């Protein structure tokens, strides 16, 4: 049963299609077949969270999904956070400023876990942040700076949306 399967899916807004074996993990498919090496592979058994991506908007571990299961689905990887790789997403800026990374290996997984979390919860408590990040391991920073980075990003997100609504209010008058 090692016949190839054709997998067609959207990644970061672009359609991709490739033949793959049924046993190929989605993490390997993204890295090896699509060349999207921003998704990192740490433990390969669902503990470290480094390979976290968005599948139809939800954070999942790409090492615990088979590539064939992603057929027809919409994925976002860390490469899709900004339209161009030279740009940083506000969450990435906050990680940089708050020293939320050292070696950076775990960072793509943290970012992709946090994107849906911050969308649902714009003003998280420290406890909520730590609970949201319980499935991501970082062996460098000790997590405090990562939590600081999330708080910074959330704070900026709130003031941005407040500013945006002021502009909208202004337009109403």
């Amino acid at each position, binding site marked *: 049963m090692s016949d190839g399967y054709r997998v067609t899916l959207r990644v970061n807004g672009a359609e991709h299609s490739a033949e793959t074996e049924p046993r190929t*993990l989605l993490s390997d498919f993204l890295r090896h077949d699509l060349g999207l090496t921003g998704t990192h592979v740490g433990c390969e058994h*669902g503990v470290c969270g480094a390979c976290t991506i968005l599948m139809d908007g*939800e954070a*999942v*571990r790409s090492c615990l999904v*088979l590539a064939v299961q992603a057929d027809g689905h919409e994925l976002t990887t860390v490469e899709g956070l900004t339209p161009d790789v030279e740009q940083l997403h506000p969450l990435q800026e906050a990680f940089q400023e708050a020293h939320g990374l050292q070696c950076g290996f775990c960072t793509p997984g943290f970012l992709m876990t946090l994107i849906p979390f911050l969308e649902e919860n714009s003003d998280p408590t420290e406890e909520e942040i730590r609970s949201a990040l*319980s499935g991501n391991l970082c062996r460098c920073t000790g997590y405090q700076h990562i939590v600081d980075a999330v708080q910074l990003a959330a704070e900026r997100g709130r003031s941005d949306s407040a500013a945006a609504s002021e502009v909208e209010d202004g337009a109403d008058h």
Partner: protein
Amino acid sequence: MREYGDEAKILAGGQSLIPVMNFRLAQPAMLVDLNRLDELDYVRISEGGTLRVGALTRMSRLERTPELGRFSPLLAEALPSIAHPQIRNRSTFGGSLSHADPAAEAPAVCLADGARFRLARSGSDRWVHATDFFTGLFETALDPEEILVEVELHPLPQRTGTSFQEIARRHGDYAMAGIAASVTLDAAGTIESARLVYLSVGDIPVDAQVAAALLTGEVPSAGLFEAAAEEAAQRAIEPAGTIHATPEFTRHLVGVLTRRALTTAVERARRPSDHE
């Protein structure tokens, strides 16, 4: 399934099976992926007033199901302890039950709730009580040609309180020990019935019926909870000991968890509004 028998494995959420395959501990010749069976992904209230949960319902969806509190506050309380958010986005209720890991939360909760499971094969199906479903370590009453398709949970009886507690080394890790406790009081406040089910202390979820019987007909008190805790810790379980917990330590944890869970469950039974 008929063609491949034991060589075939059902793939649901894959959050237990795929890690085992990644380690090459399981090398199924045939994987049958259920993930496109949207008809198995539902939570609905039946005409008979029970809650029916499709086997492919993801844990994250159950977390967002407010009605769960009326049927299984135990499950609602246990869900945040089931691994991590990214796992719960894929992990399925039926998959966790079929996998029958004694350290998993869902099997113990279903046992404590008196849930029923619908098992289907080509052309027929049958209902099995949770008590008859878990037969051994990673073993269930499922025949090779059957799959679990639906779980039925009953509304929580009046004056019933529940408590789910577990102790894990880190949040989201497999618990070293855990308990799903349910206590029903009569109008006078005496314990009418109780259920104490433990996870991570044996090959299957352990239903400590003798400990629960000690509580029946008695007025709740710290001394009574202590007696039930002692019975559960010393006689209901036979912990084998792991790298993280000696048998003595596991017995200690079971005692502590039993006292805590009974105290909370009885408090909640006295304030039924908690669950409504």
